[in-house]
């Protein structure tokens, strides 16, 4: 007789909700902690806390945001202090739409269906993760939630327990800082610059 390899927690409502957000939660945890091991431990810790506190979850509200709140708070209390940053992006505001202007100045070809494709074909996911690592904490948290989860500004504000106006300003500024970091990394690795195919055409 076949057996179900997935164990049951004895709480099917909680289990189905948890399973529906688990992969995305892991992605968020991965970019918050920076390592696979810490990401999995963080997700497991958050899952345990969520199970214990599930009676406080209000039915028909946003479970994803509720679970991410737990995960983020656990990250703050147990993981953030472990991290060491060697290099951070300059917090000087690089201005709006930095990559658009740099790519245009460099003469990158533009794909009509995916305008930034030329640049991102040269930036793999590890380089993008490195750009996140260069962001100051308050911007990295907001940007991680913004880019890994399908959440509104208000949902992100609820997760981080900060005003929605602060979320908006951090997302806007965080995007600008992230674009600056991405360009710096592309240059650092020789992915763009003198001799790069497609430039200065």
């Amino acid at each position, binding site marked *: 007789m076949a057996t179900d390899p997935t164990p049951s*927690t*004895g709480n099917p409502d909680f289990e189905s909700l948890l399973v529906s957000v688990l992969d995305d939660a892991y992605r968020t945890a991965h970019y918050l902690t920076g390592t696979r091991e810490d990401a999995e431990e963080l997700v497991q810790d958050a899952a345990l806390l969520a199970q214990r506190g599930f009676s406080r979850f209000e039915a028909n509200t946003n479970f994803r945001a509720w679970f991410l709140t737990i995960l983020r708070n656990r990250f703050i209390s147990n993981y953030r202090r472990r991290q060491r940053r060697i290099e951070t992006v300059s917090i000087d505001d690089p201005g709006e739409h930095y990559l658009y202007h740099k790519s245009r100045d460099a003469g990158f070809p533009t794909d009509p269906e995916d*305008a930034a494709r030329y640049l*991102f074909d040269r930036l793999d996911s590890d380089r993008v993760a490195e750009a996140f690592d260069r962001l100051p904490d308050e911007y990295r948290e907001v940007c991680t939630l913004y880019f*890994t989860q399908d959440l509104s500004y208000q949902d992100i504000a609820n997760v981080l327990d900060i005003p929605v106006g602060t979320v908006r300003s951090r997302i806007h500024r965080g995007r600008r800082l992230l674009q600056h970091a991405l360009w710096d990394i592309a240059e650092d690795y020789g992915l763009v610059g003198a001799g790069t195919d497609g430039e200065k055409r």
Partner: protein
Amino acid sequence: MTSPGRPIDLSCAEALARLDDYLDREVDHRAIETIEQHLGCCGPCAEEYRYEESVVRSIRRKLAEVEIPDDLRRRVLDKLRRIDPA
């Protein structure tokens, strides 16, 4: 920056300043209409918008590439059962 033939109620600077909120649909219906009207008749702003939208989509795509550990679901649920059985 304004040009002949563009809507007079939204300059390029104003449109670009609201592009991030528009991209995230964090503006009201009226603002969406106004910005779309501007983008519809301003080639440079439309080009900048398309690039920005592509950047956001590309970053999301890259972050989604992170490998989910095998059996993550099973191991998380197994740990919940062992540590805190219902």
